[in-house]
């Protein structure tokens, strides 16, 4: 099995022009990495040989090499680790019939190092790092390297996976459960339907939406009617469920591409697409009917508008334009306004301010979230600000976090709250602005994660403070007269 002559691997470096500038010996089978080694050799030699190692060198065989330089290389023999970056095309070099298989086994490598034939390898183009000492179950691909002057071939079995190094951002390379390795009958498990429906309607997102609606209702100045409140909550929740189900129906292949979304019911085939659409149609129409007849038509119109905006505009837009974040923020701003209109039946400055607060909140929230998902978005084809305009992404998050301070301070001015809210929301907003500033300045995964987590606490806290600091005692007629007076004064100013 062992080869008769001593071993050496020579690496030669080529200049970018392809002309050989410097010939350097690869001293042994031992190097920490082909790349590091090459560079060290460059610096030893005092001259820079190639700039783009990765694209320039290619493994090839030199049949004309002479064996006189081999003696010096024998010192480091016997070490087991070999990292070689081998190009994709090397398997086309198969020519000869005498082969030796090197499995990467320690003893076998030792004997290889002791006995192997000299051969020269040129790195001309490389794309992957290989560690043949590592025992892996991956598909093994064998490389044959002919030995100069001997008419022999050394066959190297590398840890090599069809030429591509796939990392764990690819869901299939990041196996987390047994179900990701198994075949399963496509059969509807009726007992799990509630769970599937919750998954289909993204229950946590829907929950957050509903909380903002409830807060919108709570903050609105008209008297609290339990029935309207409950119907409004239910209607909004159903509409949100419908929107999310349609979103998932439209994004099955894209969801398959991300770790975050790979376990969605449609991706895993627990529900059929038609089932999901039926669910969306039923919940959507039910929700809108409840909003129309149980609450008021204005709220229903807002709900329908939001449903359309989310499913027909926002969802496709994610893949077409960077503006999707802004559209998405409008989608997030409408639910609290729906809560307000459910209570008062009209859109007032307070409702718009509430919407503006939620709109501004979306930016630190989503931009921080998308920051760590850049590899996924890039591969999945989502045109996100974080990928395409990282600077803008951070700037916008900061801008809106600072704007949040101003918006909350303005709340007493439109009679949304009393001045206590302006004061007690200040620490929350200042901390948000501080974290956004950190994110803007550092732009690393840690600061973005911190910002994202805080936004999750921030908005419920802000809503609670808003309800606590709600301004009572201003009734409908009074508000309308104040409004009309303001309008008049604005009109006079304009004219």
């Amino acid at each position, binding site marked *: 099995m062992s080869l008769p002559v001593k071993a050496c691997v020579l690496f030669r470096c080529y200049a970018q022009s392809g002309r050989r500038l410097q010939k350097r010996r690869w001293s042994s089978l031992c190097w920490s990495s082909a*790349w590091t080694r090459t*560079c060290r050799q*460059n*610096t030893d030699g005092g001259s820079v040989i190639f*700039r*783009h*190692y*990765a*694209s320039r060198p290619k493994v090839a065989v030199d049949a004309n090499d002479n064996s006189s330089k081999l003696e010096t290389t024998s010192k480091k023999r016997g070490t087991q680790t070999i990292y070689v*970056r081998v190009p994709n095309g090397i398997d086309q070099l198969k020519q000869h019939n005498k082969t030796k298989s090197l499995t990467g086994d320690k003893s076998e490598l030792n004997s290889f190092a002791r006995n192997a034939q000299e051969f020269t390898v040129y790195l001309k183009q490389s*794309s*992957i790092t290989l560690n043949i000492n590592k025992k892996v*179950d991956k598909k093994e691909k064998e490389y044959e390297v002919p030995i100069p002057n001997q008419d022999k071939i050394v066959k190297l079995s590398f840890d090599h996976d069809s*030429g*591509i*190094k*796939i990392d764990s951002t*690819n*869901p*299939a390379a990041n*196996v987390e459960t*047994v*179900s*990701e*390795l*198994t*075949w*399963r*009958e*496509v*059969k509807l498990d009726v007992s799990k339907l509630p769970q599937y429906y919750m998954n289909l309607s993204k229950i946590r997102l829907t929950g957050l939406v509903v909380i903002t609606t409830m807060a919108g209702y709570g903050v609105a100045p008209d008297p609290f009617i339990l029935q309207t409140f409950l119907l409004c909550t239910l209607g909004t929740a159903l509409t949100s469920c419908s929107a999310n189900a349609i979103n998932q*129906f*439209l994004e*099955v*292949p894209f969801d*398959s*591409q991300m770790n975050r979304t790979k376990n969605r019911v449609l*991706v*895993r*085939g627990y529900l*059929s*697409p*038609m089932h999901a*659409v039926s669910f969306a149609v039923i919940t959507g129409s039910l929700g809108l009917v409840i909003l129309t007849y149980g609450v008021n038509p204005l709220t229903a119109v807002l709900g329908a508008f939001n449903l359309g905006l989310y499913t027909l505009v926002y969802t*496709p837009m994610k*893949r*077409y334009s960077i503006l999707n974040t802004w559209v998405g923020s409008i989608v997030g701003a409408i639910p609290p306004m729906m809560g307000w209109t459910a209570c008062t039946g009209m859109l007032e400055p307070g409702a718009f301010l509430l919407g503006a607060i939620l709109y501004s909140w979306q930016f630190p929230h989503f931009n921080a979230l998308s920051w*760590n998902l*850049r*590899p996924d*978005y*890039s*591969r999945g*084809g989502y*045109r996100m600000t974080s*990928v*395409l305009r990282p600077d803008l992404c951070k700037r916008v998050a900061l801008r809106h976090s600072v704007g949040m301070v101003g918006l909350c301070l303005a709340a007493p001015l439109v009679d949304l709250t009393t001045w206590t809210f302006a004061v007690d929301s200040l620490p929350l907003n200042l901390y948000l602005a501080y974290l956004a500033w950190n994110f803007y300045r550092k*732009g*690393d*995964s840690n600061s973005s994660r911190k910002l994202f987590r805080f936004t999750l606490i921030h908005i419920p806290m802000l809503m609670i403070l808003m309800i606590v600091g709600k301004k009572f005692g201003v009734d409908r007629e009074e508000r309308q007269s104040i409004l009309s007076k303001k309008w008049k004064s604005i009109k006079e100013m304009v004219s």
Partner: protein
Amino acid sequence: MSACMRIQKCQQMFVSLEGVGIRREIHLTYSRLKVKTKKGSTEITSPSPAPQNVKCDWIGPPDKLSNIRQIKFFVPECESLVEKQFREKRQSAQEFHHAFWSEHNKEFFTLKEKFTQEKLAEKKLENPDATVKSLTPEEMSEFYKQFLDDNRKNHMQYNREWYKQNFQMLLSAFKVFLYRLSSSVRKSTK
């Protein structure tokens, strides 16, 4: 641990999993996986092909590269035209996704590795003493942006095609639903 032993262990594990409540037949495919059980972690390796002679549709694990789940379609003996059309549409859609994402992901990971190596080589030349083994997300973001921009048209085409196919499949599924409904009504009236 030999492969044989691993398979044995894996079978034992599934026996115990059945006890926990996983009932169906489980086909394992490629790769190895560490599974935490009550008895500690077990490593399993068991390549297993798609199920044969299925009695209904089966859905497989995500493809290693394209992440698209394979579906083994069940073809009934007396398949009606609408059902056949629906099945063929789903089959072609699946092949379409698989082909697109295999190619796309392959390109992504190849270019990513190339970009990383080039960047690392540049860095090393600038500062030979430092041991830099990987790039920061900041440096990688350059690649992500480039890749997304380069594939814009590609994605738009794919998107349009997918939306078209998706709605056609939905329509087809609805037709099948109506067909089955009507045939069951016919049966019951007879």
